[in-house]
């Protein structure tokens, strides 16, 4: 600790801290534009210059580290005069258009000018004009207002993962630009709107729709991935006008992903339903709630539930804890254990399906191995923590089939077919076993290990896991979408045990962990099984049966066979044709509820706006439904009461035991990799229009490694026919050497591709 004085106040501070960090900690205000605690220090705006005793020149508080005996004056005349002159320089070329600027009322420059600037300008020359650039559908530019602080440039390079913006030109003509008129593509790009201290970068979808002082700010939890980012919805006239991050250092820091920021555009999409719908002569007819419940009651009570499992229930992994609990309770009352939330999985082991550590502990490991995750799309913001880790500590390895982590420094980057994951992990396990003498009882694994011949990469990965103190192995949730996912998980867990590593699985959706903790599927019956055994009725909640379930063909034929199908959904579309009744539920912004995120943090939230039309929160729909069905124990008055019971239910959860290795015969040949892009993950984001305006050519094609293309005689841009057991489509092919050999990447959950189903074998043919 070293002793310093700031504004006469004696302090003991850690060495290597900057003056501005000290000031922020003790609540002394130093104005700044370029400095941001999460970005590298640029020291270019000069607004934070302060007087330091024995220095003739003022020093930038952001870039100057405290030294023993330093005396800093942030309020002296010298400091004030310096700051005033910098303010004057910043304003000479800044337009006086605050009344029409979207940043007005929440502008750092405006606020600082009032506090530190002069009231009159001495500058009478012409002001600079900068032409605006189109950097995509999310961010609007008014570059004449830019003060060249480069926060946006540094963010995209350091957090976004790719240098997409730069300061081109020099001197007075330096301006922010992308390469030509290229759109910014980072999944985190919206954060530069928050970072911009002036109105140079503003939200395009929000533009001109409200002034900042007209908005009520309400906190909630983002629902598009399992991170559980804390967000603030800004509401005017009961409509969410924009979403910004709410700082939570241990979860989302001060950032959010673009889908969490802009998905609100999907909330009031034309597909939203305001009243219950009944299917009549292939047409939807609006009916009132009373009629809808009576219809459901009639159809359900027709079923002889004395025999078990006559009804199948499938819900989204985005369902709240309360919804899940009520569904589970209804299932029990209806004598069915055929209830599941796993829409994409083909492997169903239920143990350890969470991160295995706290989110902010990830980077404290000395070595990390990630297997089979499309981090950028699955968990756009979590990916940033891995990127930061990888760039700082050269001890990050990844084994994947499609490398979307390209801008990151990796110790080892292994790109292999999904079917080769298991061999790779066996090689690592064998190598690890050599030095740990870790015992494995399973005869099957023992035999497989005998045959394994560790490659050099596997040896190096093993070495990094062995030679470091604390380490972690994380699997992507795609692993569970594979037929041999449970085997992969098992071997990975053996490796983790052998080397003493944290083991984690990065769950896919907002409440995957919550529903798992709730033990929703007590008998571990999979959605797959529920659909293949014909049911008399199905209840499906909060997902698109064709886009979000991996086999449209299977789900459609199951629905066709059933006598009665009920959907509970905020939206209606062609996907719901096989349903008899659709009840309008509210999306996450119009309901209270609870999500449990990847690190098992329980986060409850309230509605930020009232329900649209006559739609109702999911938990209320289920409660009334139960009442109509005359089921016992559903007299809840609030979601909090439901939560209380749900928590008790969670306490009863048994630990699942490890299954043994089940040898599976994996067919070789062309493998399919379904990558769900960040903006296609669920019903809400798919309807958020701005997020999709940017859809470039790459997204409506499939990706194949150039070497494989050569072998298959394919050329870039060619149309090919892809057929699965479900359907066939025509699609353009694009060469991408980030894809493993002998595989094709098909973006899932898209209009052009959903019909193929996901994670199926495919064949390709030149069209």
């Amino acid at each position, binding site marked *: 600790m070293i002793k310093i004085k700031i504004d006469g106040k004696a302090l003991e501070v850690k060495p290597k801290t900057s003056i501005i960090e000290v000031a922020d900690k003790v609540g002394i205000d130093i104005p700044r534009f370029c400095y941001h605690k999460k970005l590298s220090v640029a020291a270019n705006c000069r607004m934070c210059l302060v007087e330091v005793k024995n220095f003739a020149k003022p020093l930038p508080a952001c870039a100057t580290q405290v030294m023993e005996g330093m005396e800093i004056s942030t309020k002296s005349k010298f400091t004030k005069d310096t700051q005033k002159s910098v303010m004057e320089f910043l304003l000479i070329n800044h337009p006086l258009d605050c009344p029409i600027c979207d940043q007005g009322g929440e502008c750092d420059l405006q606020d600082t000018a009032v506090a530190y600037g002069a009231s009159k300008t001495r500058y009478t020359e012409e002001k600079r004009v900068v032409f605006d650039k189109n950097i995509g559908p999310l961010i609007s530019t008014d570059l004449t207002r830019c003060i060249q602080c480069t926060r946006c440039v540094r963010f995209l390079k350091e957090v976004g993962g*790719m240098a*997409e913006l*730069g*300061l*081109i*030109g*020099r001197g007075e003509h330096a301006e922010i*630009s992308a*390469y*030509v008129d290229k759109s910014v593509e980072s999944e985190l790009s919206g954060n530069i709107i928050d970072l911009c201290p002036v109105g140079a970068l503003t939200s395009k979808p929000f533009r001109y729709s409200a002034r900042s002082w007209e908005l009520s700010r309400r906190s909630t939890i983002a629902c598009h991935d399992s991170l559980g980012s804390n967000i603030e919805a800004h509401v005017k006239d009961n409509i969410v006008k924009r979403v910004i991050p709410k700082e939570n250092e241990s979860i989302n820091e001060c950032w959010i992903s673009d889908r969490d920021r802009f998905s609100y555009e999907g909330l009031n999409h034309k597909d939203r339903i305001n009243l219950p719908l009944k299917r009549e002569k292939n047409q939807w007819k609006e009916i009132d709630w009373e009629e809808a419940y009576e219809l459901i009651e009639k159809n359900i009570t027709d079923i002889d539930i004395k025999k078990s499992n006559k009804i199948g229930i499938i819900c989204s992994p985005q369902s709240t804890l309360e919804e899940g609990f009520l569904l589970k309770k209804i299932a029990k009352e209806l004598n069915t254990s055929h209830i599941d939330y796993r829409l994409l999985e083909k492997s169903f082991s239920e143990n350890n399906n969470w991160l295995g550590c706290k989110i902010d502990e990830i980077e404290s490991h000395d070595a990390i191995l990630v297997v089979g995750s499309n981090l950028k799309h699955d968990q756009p913001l979590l990916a940033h923590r891995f990127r930061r880790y990888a760039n700082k500590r050269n001890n990050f390895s990844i084994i994947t089939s499609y490398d979307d982590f390209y801008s990151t420094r990796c110790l080892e980057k292994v790109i292999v077919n999904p079917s080769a994951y298991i061999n790779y992990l066996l090689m690592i396990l064998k190598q690890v076993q050599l030095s740990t003498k870790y015992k494995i009882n399973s005869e099957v694994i023992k035999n497989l290990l005998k045959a394994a011949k560790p490659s050099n990469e596997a040896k190096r990965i093993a070495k990094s896991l062995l030679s470091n103190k604390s380490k972690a192995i994380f699997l992507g949730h795609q692993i569970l979408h594979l037929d041999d996912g449970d085997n992969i998980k098992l071997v990975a867990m053996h490796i983790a045990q052998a080397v003493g590593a944290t083991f984690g699985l990065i769950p896919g959706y907002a409440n995957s962990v919550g529903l798992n903790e709730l033990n929703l599927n007590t008998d571990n019956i999979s959605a797959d099984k529920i659909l293949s055994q014909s049911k008399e009725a199905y209840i499906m909640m909060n997902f698109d049966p064709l886009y979000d379930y991996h086999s449209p063909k299977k789900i459609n034929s199951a629905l066709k066979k059933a006598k009665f199908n009920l959907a509970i959904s905020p939206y209606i579309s062609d996907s719901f044709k096989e349903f008899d009744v659709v009840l309008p539920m509210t999306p996450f912004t119009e309901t209270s509820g609870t999500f449990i995120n990847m690190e098992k943090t329980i986060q409850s939230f309230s509605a930020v706006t009232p329900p649209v039309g006559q739609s109702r929160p999911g938990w209320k729909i289920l409660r009334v439904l139960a009442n109509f069905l005359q089921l016992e124990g559903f007299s809840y008055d609030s979601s909090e009461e439901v939560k209380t019971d749900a928590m008790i239910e969670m306490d009863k959860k048994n630990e699942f035991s490890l299954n043994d290795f089940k040898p599976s015969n994996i067919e070789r040949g062309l493998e399919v990799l379904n990558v769900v892009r960040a903006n296609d993950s669920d019903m809400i984001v798919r309807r958020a229009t701005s997020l999709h305006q940017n859809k470039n050519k790459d997204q409506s094609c499939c990706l194949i490694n150039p070497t494989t293309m050569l072998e298959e005689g394919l050329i870039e841009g060619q149309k090919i026919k892809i057929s699965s057991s479900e359907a066939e489509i025509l699609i353009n092919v694009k060469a991408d050497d980030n894809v493993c050999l002998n595989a094709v990447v098909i973006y899932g959950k898209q209009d052009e591709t959903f019909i193929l189903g996901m994670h199926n074998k495919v064949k390709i043919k030149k069209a």
Partner: protein
Amino acid sequence: MLTEITRKKIDGELKKFPIDQKQSAIIAALQIIQTENGFLTDDLIALAADYLDMPKIAAMEVATFYNMFELKSAGKYKISVCTNISCALREADDIVCHLRKKLNINFNEVTKDSKFSLKESECMGACGGAPLMTINNHKMYEHLTPQKVDQILEELD
């Protein structure tokens, strides 16, 4: 695609730097490409960036920062005249006037036949030879007089 010759030249420059620091060769790469092409286009800048495994925008920053790079089509002969203090004191203005009149163009313009373009330049570090100019960046002419300028231009085809 960059031509074989261009790539060979860039590879030669790359030998000057550690293998994981290819970006160091960007100024040289852009110079090589410009010398071949006369000026730089967005696409050429992107090709250079790709060749050196660096972000396109970072190459763009470099191309727009150093002012011997031309981002607009230049004449076959780009004439850069220094007008900084030492040249100005030795009547660089007369040289500029003479060139403007002779070529009938202003600074940052190209003659109709695309043969010449004219640029104002900052100090070239050869003030003992003032007034001076360069042609196509790499050839310097010192102690200029209007007569000498005429002679130099005449010798260019």
